């Protein structure tokens, strides 16, 4: 009886499951254009500013920012997420996009970022230099070597001839900062821009060895974008003097 039932019901079932998809494909195009920008999470503040600027100069255009880890964003784009612009926090993830031939134009570098030591505001372990982080009494938190900020930390340590023994290897900069602002950890390595964005909740300490790991941010349009022209204009805005000023104010270096 069940088979009979399912034979009768199956087409209806399939239709019911597909209905929302079919409706969505119709779209709700009422003259407004939505430009979807996939950007690394560390670009949140700057790209929100640029989004506002772009919408101001482009009537009827809404910029939708999708922020996340660069590797997540790449796999979503490769999975057909429908992004128009992709701004990566490192060249490795941009290379992945180029590797699957999903870039709409040649990626261009638009910013750089370097590491800085972050401690709780009162700096309980008295950290002053990169060497201090290798000390036995410092609860150090880093990003895992698998994620860009961890790879950069590894590079800095290698260049300085140091071996760190972190109490935790976190998934993201946010997780590292969380452990420091809550006072769980004594110090961590995050980007200059993260320290600036965190305001008074952490103390930033520059160190000369940071120049051995400069992170470059590339941007490109995505192949198959419905708004290729607009996407190109957004990339141009990021690369323009105006865009570069917004980025510099947030602590990013010039490419």
């Amino acid at each position: 009886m069940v088979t009979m039932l399912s034979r009768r019901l199956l087409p209806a079932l399939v239709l019911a499951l597909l209905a929302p998809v079919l409706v969505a494909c119709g779209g709700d195009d009422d003259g407004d254009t939505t430009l979807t920008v996939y950007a690394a999470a560390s670009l949140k503040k700057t790209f929100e500013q640029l989004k506002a600027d772009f919408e101001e100069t482009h009537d009827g255009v809404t910029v939708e920012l999708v922020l996340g880890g660069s590797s997540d964003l790449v796999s979503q784009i490769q999975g057909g997420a429908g992004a128009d612009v992709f701004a990566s926090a490192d060249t490795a993830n941009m290379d992945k996009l180029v590797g699957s031939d999903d870039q709409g134009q040649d990626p261009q570098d638009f910013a750089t970022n370097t590491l800085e030591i972050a401690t709780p505001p009162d700096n309980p372990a008295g950290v002053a230099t990169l060497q201090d982080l290798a000390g036995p009494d410092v609860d150090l938190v880093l990003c895992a070597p698998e994620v860009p900020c961890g790879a950069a930390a590894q590079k800095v340590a290698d260049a300085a001839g140091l071996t760190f023994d972190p109490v935790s290897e976190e998934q993201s900069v946010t997780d590292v900062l969380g452990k420091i602002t809550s006072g769980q950890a004594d110090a961590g390595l995050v980007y200059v821009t993260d320290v600036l964005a965190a305001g008074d909740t952490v103390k930033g300490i520059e160190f000369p060895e940071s120049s051995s790991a400069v992170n470059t941010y590339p941007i490109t349009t995505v192949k198959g974008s419905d708004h290729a022209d607009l996407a190109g204009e957004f990339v141009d805005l990021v690369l323009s003097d105006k865009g570069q000023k917004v980025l510099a104010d947030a602590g990013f270096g010039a490419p």
Partner: protein
Amino acid sequence: MSGARAVGLPRWVLVPALVGALFVLLPLVAIVAQVDWSNFWGLITSESSRTALLLSLRTSTASTVVCVLIGVPMALVLARTSFPGQGVVRSLVLLPLVLPPVVGGLALLYTFGKRGLIGQSIEVVGTTVAFSTLAVVMAQVFVALPFLVVSLEGALRTAGERYEVVAASLGARPTTVLLRVTLPLALPGLVSGAVLAFARSLGEFGATVTFAGSREGVTRTLPLEIYLQRETDPDAAIALALVLVVVAVLVIGLARTGRTAL
């Protein structure tokens, strides 16, 4: 029930039931389909994978034991006593069920962390919870405990107090009644509650990553390892995800056979 003809379900019930089953099963099928079988064994037996799996099994076992030790008395109090504000207490105890695990992790951090509510007093004793395997177990207990309490409290209420009253009237002391009558009657509920708690501990991610951190062999459990591997080696992440699914299915399956045997 034997011999009596079962009342048939209305046919239409099958449709949403089937949709629901598909909704749960299809993603599992998709995971299996994604697995890179030629390298599967190598991926799941790598040093870091084995370390993470072992840590997950150890911490989940420990947290299940803790859940039983403190969850059974909690369920007993909720099911067998009545006091003003009981409803509120029950809701609060069940709060971790609806709380995002990350929020649970933050709450634990502000309680037991280095600068937390009672973390400083713990530090005076000479230990810190921060970044230790103990923190992983605490995070797991926090999210898994309600599963055991709910499941056991339900079983206790269903079992009723008849046999307990009889045993007491025959002169059994409260402890004897509890150990010889109440708990044996509620054992199936206790077992399924413990299994749920174990499974929840095994899958715990948010509270762990927020409260305990992530370090190989100390705090990086299998879900954290999967999340990290995804960054660089999606194939390894999928292979490990399948291992996690298989372990969970095995535990639930074993508990089912164990329950029917009881």
